[in-house]
């Protein structure tokens, strides 16, 4: 340090301490000696620039003299000078990065002001870098973005110069927005960030500048850019019937969402003047001409030159409009847009496109309504900025017009409200006339439904017609409102529900948009709060219910997502302040649909295990993932025509079912949706679902009174070799491993619980005291990994206890499942074989008797089947027989063959290992749940026929023990878990 200072007065040699004024002086020297960039000094320059930033940041926090020196020597000008030589990207990139790091890390306000004060930064901003080099581009835009993060009411004046009229007044902003449509996504995002950072600075004169000089060109170009994206998106949808470019489409959809969120972010800053200009551009140049006009193809409308008019398909238009209403709540914009869609009639539209907006707008409107390219490119408009005087005039004019328009809007409002009632009436009338007469009947013919159903449907429509013909007002009717007409007609699912889904989405989005006034919406959607009872748009409700009815058909073309949305929307529309406004005939239609969905599901009801699993799985799926329309509208897949094949990767609910299993799953979900709808409309609470009441289950760490319970001592050996001593308790739905409670004799702490319905038991070849037990996770908590809840070896004291446990488990599984199957049967109004008896032993017994008739040779297999727990147990055959009687059953594909396989495997591995024949009888089921019943629902007292026999009892003379006892099987009663004490009466370890 000493050396460098004394001999060379500020450093020709690099000082040892990189963080010192001396070092900066040295670097200054380097810079001044290398003002011309050459091949030779590039490396040195880059290193110097890098070091400068480092010292400055250090100085910013530690030594103010560093900054003083930097400013005194005007070192930023070196930067500029270097930049102005065509020095190549290597140096440029480092330069930009240095600046970037510098500005990002300066904490000291004063230092920042110093850096900005001499206008060098603005000169750097306007410098024409080689933007074709993507790295230079990226660093440049990051630099601008970093600067924008430093903007505030004070610093803005370094960037925005209101005095100087002859330069670009606000280069940071105007240079940046030139890249708004850059091919690189990240660059575009940086530009958007920057603009938002600029807008949020509260500086009136800057904002005036933005509005008057840049807003129109920027927004018109932006809107044109967005519009072109839309057209690309539309082309992608049209050309992709085969779902080949899903990724491309999803990117385009995401891009549109990005645009909307960006626009919404601007609008949310609540800069009134700016919002006006932006809304105007959006409405006049994009939303109305491209989105809304695409809803109709009527040639006689829209006087614009038809050939030139660009439009997108109806589906895409509905989809995009839904997105708009879901994302943007800015009142003036969405109100106008909603009014255009819902109220425009032919007369208004015929008067010329611009008239459409004039009718409803509270914003300036001296631009034509058309989706057309901006008059000039943004670059050009920004160059012309200097001719300020001209523009100033225009701005003044617009303000004038603005005022005028506002008055006319006010006037318009009063007219609107007076004509309201007539309008709503006529909408209804016209609908009923046209549709019911033609389309519906036509449609009903199309559908392959039973006569009964047809009648039902016609009945559903008929009262309407008679009612409606009473007061017909021709004017201003639905066919007169082409946009609304399209939306409502889209609700028909004649061929598929492609457009219907989007129409529902749009209606939902309209109904839920915070910015739209209820007055506009009342016309179409919301029930009137004050007026007469049952006022809602009947036609709309008719069509929604129609979708619901349709989805209960076999081979219905309505996707689950459409049904779910339809029910959601219906509930929203007809429930006002907890009161259901739905008229009786509509309610009846919903009930009819419920009946029909029950019938549909009944066809799939069978005893096979998979049905129960599916039933519970679908239930939990629905509960876990309720429909979120916002998310649905982000999924580009729904833009493609509905398909059935899962190979597209499209979610089940968003496509049609493929194969019998999926048809069953679909029927189950349809049942759930409509059941819930019906319950909601009837103000009832679900009492029967889910099948397992979680509050009635034993949880881990519960302390249980096990006096008089059957306990089987065992050692549990996990896969990793861990061994633990536990007592096995088998409840009616759960398997519980307990550890004795140290504080209370006869009590135990639950250490593990699993559902009996999910267990798999297998014997051990080598050790007759062992059982291999696997307990699967309930499907209802299906995480992606299907690791079993427990998979372990259980070692019992001896063979007999082992066999007892096996039998108990096996039977427990069957019973637990049977119990649930009966619950389902009750839900589906299927009478169970013996009414009031919901227990499996009937089937087991029947199965057993049945077996006796079969030849002896098959006995081992069949017996085994009765008690061996497997995924597809044999007793299902009995169940099937039962259900076959009730309805023409369809079999799940593949299941018979699977069963055969299972059976043969079972023979193979079980028969040679048949334990010694025994004729002892083991009283296995003597468990009784004695509980004080706190039930609200009646307790089902079951006549329990018990078959107690060893699985491998002697084939010669099987002893059948039949025992009767009663059991409480209600699931709903055990609400209070803590106090719950399962007392099981019986023998402990009876052998």
């Amino acid at each position, binding site marked *: 340090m000493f050396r460098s200072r004394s001999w060379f007065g500020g450093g020709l040699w690099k000082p040892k301490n990189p963080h010192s004024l001396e070092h900066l002086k040295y670097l200054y020297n380097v810079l001044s000696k290398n003002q011309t960039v050459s091949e030779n000094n590039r490396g040195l320059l880059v290193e110097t620039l890098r070091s400068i930033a480092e010292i400055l940041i250090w100085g910013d926090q530690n030594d103010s003299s560093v900054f003083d020196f930097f400013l005194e020597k005007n070192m930023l000008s070196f930067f500029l000078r270097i930049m102005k030589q065509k020095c190549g990207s290597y140096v440029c990139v480092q330069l930009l990065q240095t600046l970037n790091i510098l500005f990002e890390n300066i904490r000291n306000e004063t230092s920042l002001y110093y850096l900005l004060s001499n206008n060098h930064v603005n000169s750097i901003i306007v410098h024409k870098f080689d933007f074709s080099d993507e790295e230079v581009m990226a660093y440049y835009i990051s630099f601008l973005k970093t600067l924008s993060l430093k903007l505030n009411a004070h610093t803005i004046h370094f960037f925005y110069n209101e005095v100087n009229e002859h330069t670009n007044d606000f280069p940071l902003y105007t240079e940046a927005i030139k890249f708004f449509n850059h091919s690189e996504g990240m660059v575009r*995002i940086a530009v958007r960030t920057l603009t938002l950072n600029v807008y*949020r600075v509260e500086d009136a004169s800057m904002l005036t500048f933005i509005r008057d000089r840049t807003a129109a060109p920027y927004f018109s170009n932006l809107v044109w850019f967005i519009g072109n994206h839309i057209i690309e998106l539309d082309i992608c949808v049209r050309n992709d019937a085969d779902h080949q470019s899903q990724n491309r489409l999803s990117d385009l959809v995401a891009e549109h969402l990005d645009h909307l969120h960006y626009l919404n972010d601007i609008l949310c800053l609540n800069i009134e003047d700016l919002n006006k200009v932006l809304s105007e551009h959006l409405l006049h140049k994009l939303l109305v001409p491209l989105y809304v006009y695409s809803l109709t193809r009527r040639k006689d409308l829209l006087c614009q030159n038809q050939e030139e008019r660009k439009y997108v398909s109806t589906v895409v238009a509905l989809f995009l409009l839904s997105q708009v209403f879901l994302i943007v709540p800015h009142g003036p914009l969405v109100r106008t847009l909603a009014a255009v869609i819902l109220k425009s009639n032919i007369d208004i539209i015929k008067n010329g496109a611009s008239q459409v907006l004039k009718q409803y707008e509270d914003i300036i409107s001296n631009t034509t309504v058309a989706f057309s390219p901006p008059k000039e490119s943004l670059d050009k408009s920004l160059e012309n900025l200097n001719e300020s005087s001209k523009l100033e005039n225009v701005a003044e004019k617009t303000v004038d017009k603005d005022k005028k328009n506002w008055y006319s809007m006010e006037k318009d409002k009063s007219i609107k409200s007076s004509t309201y009632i007539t309008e709503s009436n006529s909408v209804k009338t016209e609908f009923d006339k046209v549709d019911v007469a033609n389309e519906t009947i036509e449609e009903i013919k199309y559908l392959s439904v039973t006569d009964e159903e047809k009648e039902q449907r016609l009945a559903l429509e008929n009262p309407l017609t008679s009612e409606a013909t009473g007061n017909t007002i021709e004017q201003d009717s639905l066919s007169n409102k082409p946009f609304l007409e399209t939306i409502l007609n889209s609700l028909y699912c004649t061929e598929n529900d492609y457009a219907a889904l989007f129409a529902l989405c749009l209606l939902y989005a309209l109904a839920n948009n915070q910015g739209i006034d209820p007055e506009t919406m009342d016309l179409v959607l919301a029930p009137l709060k004050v007026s007469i009872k049952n006022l809602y748009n009947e036609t709309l409700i008719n069509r929604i219910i129609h979708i619901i009815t349709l989805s209960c058909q076999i081979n219905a073309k309505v996707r689950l997502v459409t049904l779910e949305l339809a029910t959601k929307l219906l509930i929203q529309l007809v429930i006002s302040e907890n009161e259901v406004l739905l008229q009786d005939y509509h309610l009846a239609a919903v009930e009819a649909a419920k009946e029909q969905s029950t019938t549909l599901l009944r066809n799939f009801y069978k005893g096979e295990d998979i049905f129960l699993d599916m039933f519970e799985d679908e239930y939990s799926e629905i509960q876990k993932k309720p429909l979120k329309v916002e998310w649905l509208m982000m999924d580009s897949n729904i833009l493609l025509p509905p398909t059935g094949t899962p190979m597209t990767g499209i979610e089940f609910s968003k496509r049609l079912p493929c194969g019998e299993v999926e048809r069953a799953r679909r029927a189950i979900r349809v049942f759930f949706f409509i059941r819930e709808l019906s319950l909601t409309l009837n103000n009832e609470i679900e009492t029967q679902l889910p099948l397992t009441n979680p509050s009635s289950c034993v949880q881990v760490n519960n302390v249980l009174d096990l006096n008089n319970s059957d306990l089987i001592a065992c050692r549990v050996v996990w896969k990793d070799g861990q061994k633990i001593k536990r007592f096995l308790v088998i409840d009616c739905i759960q398997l519980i491993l307990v550890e004795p409670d140290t504080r209370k004799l006869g009590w135990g702490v639950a250490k593990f619980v699993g559902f009996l319905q999910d267990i798999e038991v297998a014997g051990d070849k080598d050790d007759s005291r062992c059982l291999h037990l696997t307990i699967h996770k309930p499907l209802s908590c299906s995480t992606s990994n299907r690791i079993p809840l427990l998979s372990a070896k259980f070692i019992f004291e001896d063979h007999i206890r082992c066999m007892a446990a096996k039998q108990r488990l096996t039977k427990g599984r069957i019973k637990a499942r049977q119990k649930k199957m009966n619950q389902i049967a009750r839900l589906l109004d299927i009478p169970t074989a013996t009414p009031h008896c919901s227990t499996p032993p009937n089937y087991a017994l029947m199965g057993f008797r049945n077996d006796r008739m079969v030849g002896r040779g098959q006995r081992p297999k069949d017996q085994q089947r009765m008690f061996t727990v497997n995924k597809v147990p044999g007793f299902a055959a009995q169940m099937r027989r039962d259900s076959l009687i009730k309805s023409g059953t369809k079999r799940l594909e593949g299941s018979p063959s699977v069963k055969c396989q299972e059976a043969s495997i079972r023979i193979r591995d079980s028969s040679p290992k048949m334990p010694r024949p025994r004729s002892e009888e083991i009283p296995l089921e003597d468990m009784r749940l004695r509980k004080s019943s706190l039930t609200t629902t009646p307790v089902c007292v079951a006549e329990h026929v018990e078959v107690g026999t060893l699985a491998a009892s002697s084939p010669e003379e099987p002893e059948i023990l039949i025992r009767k006892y009663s059991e409480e099987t209600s699931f709903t009663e055990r609400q209070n878990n803590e106090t719950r004490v399962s007392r099981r009466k019986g023998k402990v370890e009876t052998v």
Partner: protein
Amino acid sequence: MENRHRRSSLLKYFTDGKFAELSDPTVGVDFFARLIEVKDGTRIKLQLWDTAGQERFRSITKSYYRNSVGALLVYDVCNRTSFEHIPRWMMEARRHIEPHRPVFCLVGCKLDLVMNGCRREVSQEEARAFAEQYGVHHVETSARTGYNVEDAFRTVTQEVYNRIQNGEYKVEDGWDGIKTGFARPGGLDFNLVEAEPTKSSCC
């Protein structure tokens, strides 16, 4: 703002080593690009965009995520809260990067503080277990010493490259997450965002 500096320091450490010897760990960079050579010799350009400071606008973070292929989830080993926020960040990144499956790297930073006697609030085992559960990489770094910083970026790059190799990622039109390089045919670019784990402040 405070916090933003610390987090970004991880980033600056990787900018071509140009700042490698800078001893002030509070220096931030919100963007960098650099070439990384993966195992088979292919050179990949990694671009890293920091989302910090832009949280205010919903549209912006969303967009950044969408154009990225992965994210570094950075927490402070001496700040439990920052670690607890990781799942949320992960979900957010995952949601926005969909349908593509993002590459994550869980980065515990400020390891140097532990070495200087600061109390560690997130153990290595815990973080590792978390990473394993979600199938993501995990490294602990120190921007001050540069320890493992290179590693963090290299791991992610290699993983991205592997996924390109096995066909999971396709270089496709319209997604800016990965694209073929302009300069050198055969080269690949990809974007990464750095997700900020916490708003808390500490030393």
